[in-house]
């Protein structure tokens, strides 16, 4: 500042020199002439040659940045009319295209008549300062946009989290009721305040499963009924084009205007959106989501549609699974008795461990049923092959044996009839089977008669620990027309047990070794005299310990223990 304010001679320099040195231009206005006069500094600040300024308002405005010209003009016009001091900041565009920020301060004097009589002012370049503040403004704008983006990304992350949660909720279960419940619960944990999920059921046919959930109660209530008795169903609402007596939902929202629906929904419900649940081209249900206060956005509707799509597939799969499961259950029931009948004087238990992981189906089977003359039939069979085909053959053999056993007096005769039935079957099932017929003895024990078609020999486990195999011989059934079947008998004294088993028991593997007949006898010796259920569980545990963690084969163990004396 010293260099500017003082000359080397130590005297004040003329004002004009000081102003020029500071880069400050001056101007003067003569209202009577209507002309403005600029000094050379002002002209250079505006980017024009010295002496080239035209002096008119138009010439001035022509030099301004188009975006700033309007504001500048109106300010100057208003000051020119009433006088006073002003400060103005605007951009100018130099002929070479350079843009500069200028700031001006001026004063308009008015006469006693109130009209302007004189005007003057200064102008200087503030580009650097203005740019800085522009930068700040831009930075601020960036910050604002960033905050918006963060908010938007939170919203989309929320949506993503919601989709992931919904995926998890819908992924696990293959049970229709549970899937509907989970969908309803998922929708009401943040997204909707309440919802109704309706699904058409195959069983009972034509009925509707309706699940209502409310975010406040955190529960999902199931209701199943004939749709005729469910006038407020989401399905009917969403499908209203087929039933004009109900409101039709569109993609945005509707008011609750049917009395039936209003009765079904919370009193403070305002807006609803709905989606049909469509899988494999069929509408299997519908979902309605409602909010009490918040409005639905287009993004919300998209989200509901995405979830409805997934839910429809999950629900459809659950119904497919139900069909499959019903078939598997029917097979299982055809292979072994649902419940072993209670037999006076005989304690019977069975262990059935199928090799298949998912359904209890295999080629091994057993049966316990009453015969003529107070006799009981116990059988264990093993069909060649695996899986559903073997299970089908097992069911056939079990039914055929029941019929044969009623017609035949002796177990060997029953197996011969069964053999003929198998030979007549086009799919030619092959099977091994041990069949035991048990009759009460006057002494309180049981007389056992066994016929055996190629099956491991049944054992009598004496109460004392002795083991006696029942050596009836015979060949595989379903292979030749006249299998050679001999019979053998044994007597169960009180406390003795008859043990029948499939080869899965003796062929259980540990590394390179099979469990084998001798180990089975050892295991049974340990539990001689125990209740039938304890024998099956103990052999099961021994086999599992033997195989350690290795997978096992199908196996059946059927134990009938004569009641202890007294």
């Amino acid at each position, binding site marked *: 500042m010293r260099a500017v304010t003082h000359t080397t001679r130590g005297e004040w320099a003329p004002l004009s020199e000081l102003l020029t040195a500071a880069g400050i231009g001056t101007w003067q206005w003569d209202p009577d002439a209507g002309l403005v006069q600029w000094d050379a500094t002002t002209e250079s600040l505006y980017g024009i040659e010295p002496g080239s300024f035209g002096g008119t308002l138009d010439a001035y405005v022509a030099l301004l940045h188009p975006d700033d010209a309007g504001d500048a003009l109106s300010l100057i016009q208003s000051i020119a009319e009433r006088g006073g001091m002003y400060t103005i900041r605007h951009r100018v565009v130099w002929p070479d295209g350079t843009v500069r920020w200028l700031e001006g301060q001026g004063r308009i004097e008015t006469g006693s008549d109130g009209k302007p009589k004189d005007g003057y002012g200064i102008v200087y370049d503030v580009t650097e300062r203005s740019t800085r503040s522009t930068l700040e403004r831009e930075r601020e704008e960036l910050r604002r946009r960033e905050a918006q983006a963060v908010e938007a990304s939170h919203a989309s992350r929320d949506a993503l989290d919601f989709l992931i949660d919904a995926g*998890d*909720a819908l*992924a*696990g*279960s*293959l*049970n229709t*009721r*549970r899937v509907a419940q*989970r969908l309803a*619960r998922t929708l009401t944990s943040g997204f909707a305040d309440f919802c109704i999920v309706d699904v058409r059921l195959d069983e009972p046919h034509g009925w509707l499963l309706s699940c209502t959930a409310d975010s406040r109660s955190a529960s999902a209530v199931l209701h199943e009924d004939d749709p005729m008795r469910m006038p407020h169903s989401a399905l009917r609402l969403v499908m209203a084009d087929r039933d004009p007596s109900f409101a039709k939902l569109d993609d945005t929202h509707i008011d609750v205007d049917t009395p039936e629906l209003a009765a079904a929904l919370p009193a403070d419900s305002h807006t609803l959106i709905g989606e049909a649940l469509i899988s494999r081209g069929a509408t299997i249900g519908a979902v309605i989501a409602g909010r009490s206060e918040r409005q639905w956005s287009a993004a919300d509707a998209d989200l509901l549609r995405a979830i409805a799509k997934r839910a429809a597939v999950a629900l459809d799969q*659950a119904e497919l*699974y*139900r069909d499959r*499961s019903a078939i*598997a*259950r029917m097979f299982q029931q055809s292979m072994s008795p649902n419940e072993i009948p209670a037999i006076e004087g005989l304690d019977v238990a069975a*262990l059935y*461990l*199928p090799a*298949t*992981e*998912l*359904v*209890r189906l295999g080629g091994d089977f057993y049966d316990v049923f009453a015969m003529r003359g107070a006799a009981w039939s116990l059988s264990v069979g093993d069909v060649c092959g695996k899986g559903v085909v073997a299970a089908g053959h097992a069911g056939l053999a079990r039914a055929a044996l029941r019929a044969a056993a009623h017609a035949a007096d002796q177990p060997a005769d029953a197996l011969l009839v069964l053999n003929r039935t198998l030979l007549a079957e086009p799919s030619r099932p092959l099977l091994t089977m041990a069949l035991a017929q048990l009759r009460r003895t006057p002494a309180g024990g049981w007389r056992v008669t066994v016929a055996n078609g190629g099956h491991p020999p049944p054992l009598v486990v004496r109460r004392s620990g002795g083991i006696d195999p029942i050596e009836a011989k015979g060949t595989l059934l379903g292979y030749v027309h006249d299998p050679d079947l001999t019979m053998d008998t044994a007597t169960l004294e009180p406390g003795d047990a008859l043990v029948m088993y499939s080869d899965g028991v003796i062929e259980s593997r*540990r*590394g*390179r*070794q099979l469990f084998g007949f001798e180990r089975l006898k050892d295991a049974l010796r*340990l*539990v*001689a*005299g*125990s*209740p039938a*259920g*304890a024998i099956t*569980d*103990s052999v*099961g*545990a021994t086999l*599992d*310990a*033997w195989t*350690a*963690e*290795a997978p096992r084969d199908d196996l059946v163990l059927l134990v009938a223990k004569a009641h202890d004396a007294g």
Partner: protein
Amino acid sequence: MPAEIRPEDVSTYVARASAGDEPATWELVSGFLGELSAAEVMRDLVAAGQHAIGLCWQGGRCTIRQEHAATAVSQRIVARMMKETPPGRTRDDFVVSLSAERDWHSIANSMLHAVLTADGWSVITLPPGTTAGQLGSVIHDHGPIAVVVTCSMPALLPGARRIVMASQDAGTPAIVGGRAFGSDPRRAQRINANGWASDLLGVPAAVAAHGGFSPPSERIDHPSISEYSLLRSQLGSITATIQDAMPRHIGGAAEDHVGAALWILRSLSATLLCDDPTILAEDIAWSRDRSWTGAPAPDPLVDVILDALPDDLPLARQLLMQAR
């Protein structure tokens, strides 16, 4: 009748049940039923008695026949208690209960059934021998709100883990309990169970707290889990190696020794699964204690296992050496 079950009552229970004397056992049990809840009697008398009988057999002081007789009596006692204590209220939801895969101690399951039924839950109890895959079908068929898994021995925890996974993958929370889990929730957490019940009486509350939905099972995330997977994938070949090597080591019939070595291997596997070295250490200490009964001593078996283990299981080797 005193309102508290004392150790001598448990001894009486063991004596009467292992003699197969159901009427006398019921007389003892029913004496407490007026004062204590059925669940308390089951926990403090029936379950405690069963545990004592198990220890008695393991210690060589009871025969397996006595253990079976006691279990059969206990089963019938539990069934009778159920019949005589009507459920307090009924709930809409139901629960599936079962033992860990390859755990055959089904009496715990019967008691679970009784305690949950008394609390108003409908219960489907699956028989021992049920696999994780079969559990999945049951869940899909019936849609329970929770699966309760009991596990009696730590070495069987991998079987509990498979049940937990099957349950969660079918969208259903798995609540675990039983002696295998110890006295704190750590092991239950390590196998990613949804809940843990410290004892029989805690099960209804755990079901109420955790029942509902579960996301699909998560991978277990702790340092020893990769060795757990590696060990399991090689169990077949390790078993064969042990079978081949054992006769050389003991100079004769090796069957019991192979069985005992495989049990240690299962314990090792559970240790890696739960990242809990106490499992293996306790199992080995326990077999050492009972070797006087004629059971194979564990330390020479550990040497055979170490020889059979592949080199890519450094943590497993270290655990075995520490436990020896």
